[in-house]
């Protein structure tokens, strides 16, 4: 995934679109105070400088889907693993909720679901297990007591692959689809003709915490 910092408007549509698509539980004032609200995509702001010379960088942070993912290394239950296509996924049925991965993740991309499903005011119990437009949701019942994270909407991608659609053009994750500024692009980094490869060759980019050598796969184009 490539996020263009110049096009991004800091509106947080990525966060709400993600919550909408993946039925991620919303938080509460208490949750936020205790830092246990769940986000699969969180927008953060980093400010530097002193008035009147100040700069705030607003950064949208999905899971970085690292090639060398620290969370995969530490998981004692093999609940989190990297798929062949590079997406790092979490198997709720294997997860024992030890939160080791949360500690290990350098990007804060993981959240622990500490809430009973029934607690949620906006629970949608009538949702079909096939709950996404794009493909089968493999975890029809969301359980508490496990760690959750962004999946790059792999339910959409898998279905798209199955139907022979062009990933990154016809099929993209919800946050990419609903980014009003068109700041997010998704595609195959190994394919030199893809939009993401073209963008990365056209401008300067960074990856967050490059020094950790996580080889993460969310790139930020600089302004």
């Amino acid at each position: 995934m490539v996020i263009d910092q110049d096009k991004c408007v800091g509106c947080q549509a990525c966060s709400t679109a993600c919550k909408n698509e993946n039925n991620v539980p919303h938080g509460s004032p208490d949750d936020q105070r205790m830092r246990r609200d769940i986000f699969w995509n969180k927008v953060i702001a980093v400010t530097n400088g002193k008035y009147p010379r100040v700069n705030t960088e607003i950064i949208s942070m999905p899971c970085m889907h690292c090639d060398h993912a620290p969370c995969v290394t530490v998981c004692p239950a093999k609940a989190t693993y990297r798929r062949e296509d590079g997406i790092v996924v979490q198997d709720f049925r294997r997860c024992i909720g030890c939160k080791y991965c949360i500690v290990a993740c350098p990007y804060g991309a993981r959240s622990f679901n500490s809430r009973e499903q029934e607690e949620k005011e906006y629970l949608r119990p009538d949702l079909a297990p096939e709950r996404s437009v794009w493909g089968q949701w493999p975890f029809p019942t969301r359980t508490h007591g496990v760690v959750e994270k962004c999946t790059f909407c792999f339910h959409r991608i898998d279905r798209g692959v199955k139907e022979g659609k062009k990933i990154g053009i016809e099929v993209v994750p919800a946050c990419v689809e609903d980014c009003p500024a068109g700041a997010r692009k998704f595609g195959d980094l190994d394919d030199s003709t893809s939009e993401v490869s073209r963008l990365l060759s056209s401008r300067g980019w960074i990856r967050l915490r490059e020094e950790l050598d996580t080889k993460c796969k969310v790139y930020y184009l600089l302004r």
Partner: protein
Amino acid sequence: MDRRKFLKWSAFTGAAVGASKIMGQFNVPEASPLQKEIQKSFEEKWVATSCLNCPARCATRVRVVNGKAVKITGNPLSQVSEGKICPRAHVGLQVLYDPERIITPFKRTNSKKGRGVDPKWVPISWDQALSEVTNRLRKLRENGEPHKLLLFYGLNTVSTEDMILRFAEAFGTPNLISGDGLDSEAEKSGNWMADGHYAHTACDLDHTNYILAFGADMVESSKPLSRFLRKWGKFRREKPNRTKVVVINPRYSVTAAKADEWIPINPGADGALAMAIAHVIISEELYDRTFVKGWTVGFDFYKNLALNQYAPKEVSRITGIEPEAIQRIAREFARTQPALALRGKEAIDWPEGSFTSYAIFCLNALVGSIDVPGGVIYQESPQYNQMPPWVEDDIAKKGKAKPSLDLHGSNKFPVAKVVTNQIPESLLENVPYPIEVAIGFNSNFVMSSPGADRWDQALTKLPYYVHLSPFISEMALYADLVLPSTTFLEEWGYDHSPPGSGFAEAKIKQPAVSPRGSARAITDILFEIARGLKGAVAQSFANIGDHAEGFVKFRTEKLIPWKELLKKGTWIGKNYEYKKYDRIFQTPSKKFEFSSGNLKAVLAKTKKEKGNGWDFSPHYKEAKFLGDQEKFPLILLPYQPLLAVENGSQNYPWAQEIFLPMHGVGWETLAEINSETARNLKLKDGQLVWVESPFKKIKVKVKFSEGVHPGVVAIPSGQGHYSYGKWQKGIGANPNEIIGVDYDSISGQSAFFNTRVKVYKA
């Protein structure tokens, strides 16, 4: 294989196969009996409709599964925002399924009214509720006093607005009050002085190369928001030359953070800066001579005014911006063509806001950015099917001849179209006459007006108040009767966005799901009340469709076939045509006016004294502040974050938890103070403080910031609800409560930024 069959197949045989491929190495358990049951009855549809969480009214598609809306996304056929939606639209699901919505009419049993008084609601039937309202209204007309009806309306669909307007006309009341007077009327009046259009500005963002944003929060609260969000991406990196954006604002907004340059300005000095920029452009002869010579009048006076009084050096003292910086942005603005000067609330919601608005708008004319690609454009509206004229009897005629309660058009507000915040004063003093019955349609002015106390008192005093909205908002607390209206996902309507795109676009609202409980669409409620009133009012509502769906069908049938509209969701007009100079200017001279003939004509009629040239030209007058500078050293700057939903409620966790992106927090109101100032006040970051104005005080958490002018306290609006809702009640504070009451003398726009405050430890 079609979708349904595929699903059935996958449920019984394929689930394990398909999913195990996804999982790679793990097996997926069989679907549970309950899941199988759900899968069997799985029915999905996509409904093309539109949003109403802000006035942009974006076209959306809603995914409905088994009768329940589960996802909202943009409609790619819509061109205003190229099919994109902002986060507010996603929140629509929580508006629809708000657990604390009301779904049956309620009647007040506690005759005492007031803030904090329990209304003791009891549910009643629709028949009883409607007959009660109709009887009250009928009595007014029988007594020949239809003007004693007061109608408020907040954010509604265009179709509902058309119905409310028709109702007011047929009933015979001049008192139809929108919330526009709390928004940015000064922008409209500034345009009106220059080009005769009393309307918001539309901008051709696709082709512009330079944007100078005076207090315009383009990516937070400008209208139509989603268009700004989409076009920002487009003009930055989807065209060969990147558009530069310079933001002038005392506060480092999200827009400023995303812009190329942020120039903090002293509050209320935007008019002076605009004139100084004109000074530089004129003195260095950088202006567009062809346009100025061919299509403007009054340039010489304006030129002399700018050259003689607004040298960058002088203005630097007023604005706090270096003269070199003023010269630089003026040159950039004039030399980068096409360029746009935008204005937002922070610049123009001031007592002299209209002239600031006028001054900033004139910069566009100076560089020829009027009706050209990349400049200011003129919005076209969809031509809905004409309704037959309403039937006007003598009672209505007499009622409408009475002066309006908001005093618009009077000597106090000669130009204004609506002065929302004047209503409480008029109600409390019975000026020009007392009001018997009031009806509010999705309005919540108690929260959004400066000087909320007056609204409390005025609404308490109202003899009979009926409120229509999907929830018990703050204003509904004062009602005698609350009628549950539907949300935008449950009703019929047609809509169009506020000015922005240039070309016309209409969108439909069709029910994605059936209404919750017994909630009814406002359009249907009005049809019923009108029928109940009989006579001229009933006749006025005959032959226009008879119910909400029929009304929408009637109004749109000439634009596009009904079935096609239901499927596509939008109708788009012809492409925008530029350079219509011979017919777009609605001024006495039929040209762009640097000296306003429109204003002159109105003032000649209403004011006794004759103004001099100054009074009709863009100029800067020193801002008038409420409160003593010694006692109240800081200036309050309220602002609207993107996730402040504009329907009068904020009971939406998705919006609340990411409310303040610049600070990474939600569920909160923060008073942002420059860290230097805060340290001088001996405050600690994060502690609770009182922010006190000469009128009232509120308790909020202080946040040290590097992105705020040292003389300013910035507080987001949108919180501080006290009526209903687990996710909003008692959270944060409302800065509007401590703002003093003041108006722009021309447009009647409420001034929001000229209240002085002091901050101290709570």
